[in-house]
């Protein structure tokens, strides 16, 4: 039971690392961005987990009770804005991938590097 309280952190760590694996090991640029989203989601989970208070409720005052325990609002504020910022930056990444595809007609990293190398050799 003692270690059950750490389960959220463990899942966050494994999610973080599976996202990280996709970023460093996969060659496909879209897959890398998906990995980055996983990484992000793991950070969100970590923050929200930290804000939880046992027996607390969502940090909204209701008329019902004066003596309520609230979960910590601050991590929620940070993550709330981070989610929207996250989708905007992911979209920016996807836009770069789309342009890469139009220039190189591939989104595999190694093929792009190969084409770059050939181009360098040809220009010399």
């Amino acid at each position, binding site marked *: 039971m003692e270690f059950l309280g750490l389960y959220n952190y463990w899942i966050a760590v494994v999610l973080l690392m599976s996202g990280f694996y996709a970023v460093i*090991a996969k060659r496909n640029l*879209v897959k890398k961005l998906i990995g980055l989203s996983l990484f992000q989601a793991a950070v*969100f989970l970590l923050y929200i987990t930290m804000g939880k208070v046992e027996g607390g409720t969502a940090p909204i005052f209701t008329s019902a009770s004066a003596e309520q325990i609230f*979960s910590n609002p601050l991590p929620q504020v940070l993550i709330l804005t981070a*989610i*929207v910022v996250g989708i905007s930056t992911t979209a*920016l990444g996807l*836009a770069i991938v*789309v342009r890469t595809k139009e220039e190189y007609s591939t989104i595999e990293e190694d093929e792009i590097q190969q084409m770059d190398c050939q181009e360098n050799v040809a220009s010399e």
Partner: protein
Amino acid sequence: MNAIFGIFLLTLMLITAIAVVRTRNLFVATTLMGIFSLLLAANFFLLDAADVALTEAAVGAGISTVLLLSALSLTAEQEKPGHRGRLLALAVVLVTTLALLHATLDSPRLGDIDAPVHQHVAPWYIENTPTAIDVPNIVTAVLASFRGYDTLGEVFVVFTAGIGVLFLLGHYPHKQAHKPHEGLRHYLIQRLVGRTVIPFILLFGFYVQFHGDFGPGGGFQAGALVAAGIILYALIEGTDRALNIIPKWLLNGMVAGGALLYGGVGIASMLMGGNFLDYSVLSSDPVAGQHLGILLIELGVGITVTGVLLSIFFAFASRKHF
């Protein structure tokens, strides 16, 4: 009961995430990411983060899936096999995982009220929200008033990302024979369901926008919801019809206008003798001033987020293969 349900959801998330990383089909990965986001949103709800759950459900499960799919339609659906350095990557990931897992052993248990994170500034926010701001939703009070600078920064990041996407995809190098985008107009069921659901999505979006002081909600969530409603319309009726309703100049105006409104409130409070983004001076009664300020800046946030998400969607959707 909640704890068991939480563990169940987390385990499902873990399985989904591993499937996302393993699959070579990017279409499958995108769909699984949508499921992952929904599970994450449910988890946030269990962890008392209603506002965050709302945002994650609208953004992660809705808009991000659509954006990924439209990016896939412009690139490739299948990942090519073969990866060098896979073992090295696995080793790095394993070592880091173990180190991080070891580090968690010292961290406070879930729900521990004595955890350091609850000792710092958060109790002050909870204590002072009723007297200084007087809105029931503490998250809104912290987001819009106590930490208004942060939020202004975030809005400008969203704004900048939107501008970046428009720079990258907003122009069309080859003028092609223009074939209007038909959407799903010929599919009766999708069309009927869409027509029934879209007004309610938009209505809920506006409710979330203006009720954000009292319940879960605010500009970020509302922006995502309204954008999701209009994106649904664009998917069903075709992007051209959607762009007739909400033309490009209006979108560009929204992208800039919302951020400008937020900044403008800050300047206005300076001109009226307060500090930047100190809403107390906006009205003769400080608390009423806070209410007015929060309403205005949440409106600015909502307008910018809607504008940026829609601009990004239309930039992807109206780009053709070539």
